[in-house]
C-alpha cells in the first residue's frame, strides 16, 4: 500500500477561538507555570501586555481545532490506529491575550512515504483580530506500516 498524496496543498475552513482569562489560568496551572502574568490582569498589564497573556504552548488550545477536519479528511486518509504524533514546531509572533479572537487555518504541506512509514505534515497559521500572526505550527504525524 502507498500513501495518497492528492490532499497535498489542500486547505480547510478557518476556525475562530476567543481566548479567555480563566482558560489561560487552567492551562498554565496544569503545566506548572506560576508567573502572575498568566493569572492576574494587573500583573500582565504591568509587564506590558494588553491583558492576561497565554503561555506560548497555549497555542495548541486555539490552533488544534482547525486541524481536526484536516486529520479526519478521507482525502488525507490517515490510519489513526497506527498514527503517532512524530514532531511539532511552533513559531510565535504577537502574544495571545485574554479577549483576543484568533482565527486559524490549516493546510496540508506534505505527504510522503519513508522506510515503510507515512509522513503527514500540516501547517496551521493563527492570526489575531488585528491580522497579526500569533503562531505558525507545523504538525508531523507518522503512520506505521502504510
Amino acid at each position, binding site marked *: 500500500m502507498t500513501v495518497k498524496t492528492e490532499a497535498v496543498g489542500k486547505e480547510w475552513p478557518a476556525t475562530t477561538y476567543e481566548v479567555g482569562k480563566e482558560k489561560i489560568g487552567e492551562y498554565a496551572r496544569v*503545566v506548572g507555570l506560576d508567573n502572575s502574568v498568566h493569572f492576574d490582569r494587573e500583573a500582565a498589564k504591568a509587564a506590558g501586555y494588553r491583558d492576561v497573556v497565554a*503561555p506560548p504552548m497555549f497555542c495548541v488550545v486555539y490552533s488544534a481545532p482547525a486541524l481536526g477536519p484536516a486529520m479526519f479528511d478521507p482525502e488525507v486518509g490517515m490510519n489513526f490506529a497506527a498514527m503517532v504524533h512524530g514532531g511539532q514546531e511552533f513559531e510565535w509572533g504577537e502574544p495571545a491575550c485574554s479577549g483576543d479572537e484568533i482565527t486559524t487555518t490549516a493546510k496540508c504541506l506534505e505527504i510522503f512515504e519513508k522506510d515503510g512509514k507515512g509522513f503527514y505534515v500540516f501547517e496551521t497559521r493563527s492570526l489575531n483580530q488585528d491580522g497579526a500572526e500569533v503562531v505558525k505550527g507545523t504538525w508531523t504525524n507518522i503512520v506505521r506500516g502504510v
Partner: protein
Amino acid sequence: MSDLNVGDAIPELKVTPDKYLPHRYAGASGDFNPIHIDPEFAKAVGLPSTILHGLYMMGLVARSATDVAGGDPKALKRLLVQFRGMGAPETEIAVTGTVKSVGDGKAVIDVVAAQGENQTIRNAEAEIQL
C-alpha cells in the same frame, strides 16, 4: 539571563506528573484521546497503560526554555521537537538542555525531556530572545 555561552547547560527542570495529570491536561487542552485517560483503552491498543500527552511534555520543554530567558512568555520565539518515546504518568520527567548558539540577542538551546533512560523528546530546539 544574558550571560549564556555556547555549551552551557541550562538549569534542569524536574516534574513528576501525578496519576490524574493527563485528565487535567485533557481538560485544559481539549485533547481527550482515550490513550491518555483510559487504561483499558490504552491496553487494548497495545500500550502498557495510559501515556502522557506529547504536547504536555512539549509544554514542559517550553517552560524550561522560557525560564532560561527570565520567565517572560514572549521570549520564546520558536520551539521544534521530535516525539521519540512514550511518557508515563507517576514517573519523574527531567528536562535538560545545552546552549547551541548565541547571537543577535537570541540563543538556541538543544533540549531533551527524559524519564530515566527513555528520551521522550529529543532533538528539540528552542529559540529564545535574551
